[in-house]
């Protein structure tokens, strides 16, 4: 404690976070939250360094996407939209974008609904194959999706679903399910059973009680799980690469891969494609990152 206090005085003045009387304030603050004694520079310096490492790559991509071909300027001015219109129209990113949206949104809803049902069963019932089912969920985490490509391809070929977005939606949903079920059952366990029982006593059916009482409390968790599913399927590319060979069915990551693999890589177009790929997930992420943290800490499955 003494060391922490001494350090505090040598560091820059702490930000006035709380208004407490001066002399006992130091001890009072220390008691409230010991870690608040960290000198400010010990927060801002490493954070600043890490922020530079995180943001420069994004900036670099943005820079390449908006500066005219042949320019070597490090400032994105003058801006041009030529790369964007090129990838959007000539390289069919408009179509890829639409396909990725369909896959992402469909996976989001399918995963959330199926996982909600399964998670509810695990959280609220004891049944004979429960432990076996849990074990299967955990074991499936060890299965490399990349190595299931050939058998999955054969299955979808038999179902006549090759070159249909449905194959990718199913595959993404299935591989997203185990973790989603585990997380959701954790969230449901955190909702006291007595709340539901009270609703039954009031005459609600099990389903209505669930919708009226449990569902609203699951919101942060469902947002975490749903956004996980969306971001994951938006990003994942092996299934789309394998199952969708027609160009008008492909998704954004496959389009990016094509740009990377081109004989002479058009860096401007590649960067513009990257920006198009990044925008939806970064927006989703900006909205959900708070819920992500509360969602995970609520859903922490222990014991």
């Amino acid at each position, binding site marked *: *404690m*003494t*060391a*922490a206090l001494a350090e505090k005085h040598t560091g820059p003045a702490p*930000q006035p*976070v709380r208004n407490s009387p001066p002399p006992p304030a130091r001890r009072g603050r220390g*008691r409230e939250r*010991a870690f*608040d004694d*960290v000198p400010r520079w010990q*927060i801002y310096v490493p*954070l600043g360094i*890490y922020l530079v490492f995180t943001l*420069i*790559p994004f900036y*670099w991509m943005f820079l*390449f996407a908006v500066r005219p071909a042949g320019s*070597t300027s490090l400032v994105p001015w003058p801006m041009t939209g030529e790369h964007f219109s090129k990838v959007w129209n000539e390289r069919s990113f408009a179509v890829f974008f639409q396909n990725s949206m369909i896959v992402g949104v469909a996976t989001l809803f399918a995963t959330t609904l199926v996982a*909600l*049902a*399964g998670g509810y*069963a695990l959280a*609220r*019932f004891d049944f004979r194959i429960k432990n076996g*089912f849990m074990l*299967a969920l955990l074991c*499936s*985490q*060890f299965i*490399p999706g990349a*190595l*299931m*490509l*050939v*058998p*999955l391809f054969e299955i979808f070929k038999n179902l006549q679903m090759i070159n249909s977005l449905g194959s990718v939606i*199913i595959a993404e949903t299935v591989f997203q*399910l185990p973790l989603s*079920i585990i997380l959701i059952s954790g969230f449901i366990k955190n909702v006291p059973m007595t709340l539901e029982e009270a609703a039954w006593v009031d005459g609600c*059916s*099990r*389903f209505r009680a669930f919708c009226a009482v449990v569902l609203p409390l699951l919101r942060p968790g469902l947002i975490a799980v749903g956004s996980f599913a969306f971001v994951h399927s938006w*990003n994942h*590319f092996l299934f789309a690469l394998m199952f969708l060979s027609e160009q008008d069915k492909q998704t954004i*990551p496959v389009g*990016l*891969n094509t740009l*990377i693999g081109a004989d002479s890589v058009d860096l401007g177009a*590649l*960067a513009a*494609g*990257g920006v198009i*790929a990044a925008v939806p*997930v*970064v927006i989703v*992420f900006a909205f959900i990152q708070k819920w992500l*943290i509360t*969602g*995970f800490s609520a859903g*922490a499955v222990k014991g």
Partner: protein
Amino acid sequence: MAQAAAVAKPPKVPRRRTASPRRLPYLLIAPAGLLMLGFIAYPVISVFYYSLQNYNVTKPWRNGFAGFDNFSRIFTEDDHFWTTLGFSAQWVGVQVSLQLALGLALALIVNQSFIGRGISRAMVFSPWAVSGVLTSTIWILLYNSSTGFSRYLADAGIGDYGTSVLSDTGTVFWAATVAELWRGVPFFAILILADLQSVSKELYEAASVDGAGRMRQFLHITLPHLRDAIILATLLRGVWEFNNVDLLYTLTGGGPAGETTTLPLYVANTGIEGHDFGYASALTTVAFVILLFCSIVYLRLSKFGGDHK
């Protein structure tokens, strides 16, 4: 479809609430169970089955039962197996340990209260949402020799023109490592930060009253609290880093000269490009067994869920 069934089923059940609780849980896990049986269990079984077969689309005359030939070929003849397995181990080890160290540090920093915390969190976590292909895209832009980072460094007199870190066998590992760290650290930071929310403030109060400094508080309160979360996160991430191929596939393509080929990448090349699906299945089976064995040993050694609290 299956998800439609999931919504349709629950409302029917309550009418017979007295009789239903026996069947309801089965109805509820049915959609998930059926999907996983059809699209995970069945492919896994067929991989096991094909691992005992000669199955090569380009050499159909040799197809048929092979017994353990594929497996003995892996362990006795195939040097690629050992080199790619070694590289996988190196990749997973370096990634998981660095991601954990940086992610833990980052989580501790953004768990403090300071001005600009919300926006800093959003920014440092944002690469979590970025895909392997997009990560490759970004780092290809940074690493390329004509207009990438090195060119501007060379302009300033550092290094020389014409070096691409991705085509040099000496630098490619670290080039790929940095790219993967960039998007991997937020995963650990998010999970650890989530777990930090549940550390009881009273413990720190008591510790500081007893005169424990920040380092001792970290070692004796924070770290033990985070233990299970760290074990679980490292395990999940280790498996994920082992299995995931999209970054290396698009960034280096396993090259140069096979320098960055992981075992799954080798399997994918054998099965998909080489069409030797029987052998690829045997490799998959071996990889799966190694992964499962390592995970069990790891959980045992780390005493996950033990009585440390």
